[in-house]
């Protein structure tokens, strides 16, 4: 009997991270933030690398906090799945909406006003 789908009781096991390790993680997070800050000051030199670079660094910080501070790494996989679903959905919708606005609809077929000459696009 019992629950066939019961995952082992994960919530009673505390993460094994020590205070020292937490402090190191905090230091790493601070250093990444400092690097980001410096990067943003050299906007012109970095050019196209800047935005992806900043996004990657902030993604690393995000993952570190979620995995270690919110200890998803040690917790039930269900939490990761649920949170990831929400986060991925939010990201996709954000990108979709921003792209829809960046897309200049009045230049396209189907956009514009009724009766616009077709060669106008």
């Amino acid at each position, binding site marked *: 009997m019992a629950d066939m789908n019961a995952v082992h009781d994960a*919530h009673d096991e505390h993460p094994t991270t020590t205070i020292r390790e937490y402090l190191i993680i905090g230091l790493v997070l601070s250093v990444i*933030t400092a690097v980001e800050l410096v990067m943003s000051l050299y906007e012109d030199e970095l050019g196209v690398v800047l935005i992806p670079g900043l996004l990657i660094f*902030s993604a690393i910080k995000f993952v570190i906090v979620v995995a270690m*501070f919110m200890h998803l790494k040690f917790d039930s996989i*269900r939490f990761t799945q649920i*949170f990831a679903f929400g986060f991925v959905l939010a990201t996709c919708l954000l990108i979709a909406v921003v792209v829809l606005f960046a897309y200049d609809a009045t230049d396209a077929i189907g956009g514009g006003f009724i009766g616009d000459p077709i060669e106008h696009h």
Partner: protein
Amino acid sequence: MSAATHETEHHTSLGVDNRKLLMWIFLASECLFFGSLLSTYLIFKGESLSGPGTDIFAFEITSISTFVLLMSSLSMVLAVYGAQHGQLGLMKLMLLCTILLGLVFLGFQVYEFKTFASEGLTLSTNQFGASFYILTGFHGCHVGVGVLYLSSLLISSVRRNGIGKETPLYIDIGGLYWHFVDIVWIVLFTVVYLIPAY
């Protein structure tokens, strides 16, 4: 099977605590909340028909407040550590630290808003102002709620009986909320402040 619900309370289908599951689902919901606010901000980014634009940002102040919030996450995780390892003194001290750092962050935000307002950026100045204030303002509200939340945990824990045998769980769940507010700021700091207008 025994008929007592006590048993079912401690033995859940997914093997996780109900309250913790609730918090994680809630945080998934919050992702959509901040996602919508951030979309609005990005759509209007750089659109200022009149008045100041993103060049109004003062990096020094924001960098310090970002650092403060990052450190509050560190103190929060140490509070959780204290609760889980029975070091209640450490837990209370670190909770207090987290609350104070949260308040400092809020203070910086109030200062920032006041400065921007005096430089002519208000809710009605332009789209940039409106979407910036509503985005960071809602984040500030979340920090504020977090401060109240953690304060109530701290007050409960210093009472004579403390929170009881479930202290680690309550601190843990409070910590999840706090860290979430921090990761929202990690994203906002990069996207709003560091990435230049295009």
